[in-house]
């Protein structure tokens, strides 16, 4: 069993609020410099840049296919999927409930760059990724599960867009597999313990929107090797695998 470090919530320039410099090669380079073995690409309501980051990473870094769904209640739900195809299929379902951007959108919310592995723009996303979907929290978690994914309640320590901040309580019935805390909650602290009370593993993720954020929070994953299947087993605490410190 090995311990590896993972930052399981990183945005690319596809997210309108993320820096345009968040291209596949830049993200991969930053993750390697930070000593990460695994990252997850989680753009808002889309997985269109996942495959490009995976291609840019090659064998140097494990890049999980993710997506950060904005629910109807404006809660953020991170889905981590077995592969890019599953994430893209989930993304297509999510995208079906988003409207098309209009003239002012890019000015006020930002540009949505679809990139190739070299970081070159191949197009712009024309759905409003910055807005809420029509899926409620339960439906978003169910959608992630239906596509074989792991559902994570994103940055639950934050007042904006976390499930607790938006709903006022943790929705135990939704069926989350893990909770995520932001870089403001350090591992091993009493504050972290507050978020362990739901009986779910606690992930530490950067929610990076800028290059300098990559790896600013990280989860220690004890497993055979970095990868989606091993992460799922670690989240479940299977045969000595685990997330976080003992």
């Amino acid at each position, binding site marked *: 069993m090995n311990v590896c470090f993972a930052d399981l919530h990183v945005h690319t320039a596809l997210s309108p*609020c993320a820096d345009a410099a968040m291209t596949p090669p830049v993200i991969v380079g930053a993750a390697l410099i930070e000593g990460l073995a695994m990252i997850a690409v989680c753009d808002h309501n889309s997985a269109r840049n996942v495959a490009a980051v995976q291609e840019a990473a090659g064998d140097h870094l494990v890049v999980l296919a993710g997506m950060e769904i904005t629910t*109807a*209640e*404006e809660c953020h739900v991170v889905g981590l999927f077995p592969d890019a195809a599953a994430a893209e299929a989930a993304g297509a379902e999510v995208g079906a409930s988003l409207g098309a951007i209009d003239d*002012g*959108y890019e000015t*006020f*919310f930002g540009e949505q760059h679809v990139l190739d592995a070299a970081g070159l723009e191949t197009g712009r996303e024309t759905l409003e990724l*910055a*807005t*809420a979907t029509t899926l409620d929290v339960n439906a978003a978690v169910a959608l992630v599960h239906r596509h074989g994914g792991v559902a994570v309640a994103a940055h639950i320590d934050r*007042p*904006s*867009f976390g499930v607790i901040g938006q709903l006022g309580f943790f929705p135990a019935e939704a069926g989350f597999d893990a909770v995520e805390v932001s870089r403001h909650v350090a591992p091993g602290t009493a504050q972290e313990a507050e978020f362990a009370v739901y009986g779910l593993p606690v992930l530490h993720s950067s929610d990076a929107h800028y290059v300098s954020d990559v790896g600013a929070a990280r989860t220690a994953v004890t497993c055979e090797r970095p990868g989606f299947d091993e992460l799922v087993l670690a989240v479940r605490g299977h045969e000595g695998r685990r997330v976080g410190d003992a």
Partner: protein
Amino acid sequence: MKLDDIARELGFTELTPEVPGARDTDIDRGYASDLLSDVLAHAPEGGLLVTLQVHLNVIAVASHAELAAVVFAGNRKPEDDVLAKAAAEGLALYSSPADTFDIAGRLYALGVKGTHA
């Protein structure tokens, strides 16, 4: 009623004094919501928004919906980067110790109506 007069009458704290001309804006419509998607879809152009949300996206949403001002209820105040973004967009921000219900009621009494009035 002019924004400046509303702010004075209701004791709002001005958070963006550098927004030129905003105080002379006439306000006759208001909206209260904490769901940004709802604000985007339904808030009246040129109106005033009362909300608890202080996230940066409030500014993007309010600008896109062409609102004139945002009042943060319950003494909430956004971070400096949010204030700077609002100033750049020409959006006036205020804070009030009152809750959303009280602010909306007092605005109504001053003649600021909802979208269905």
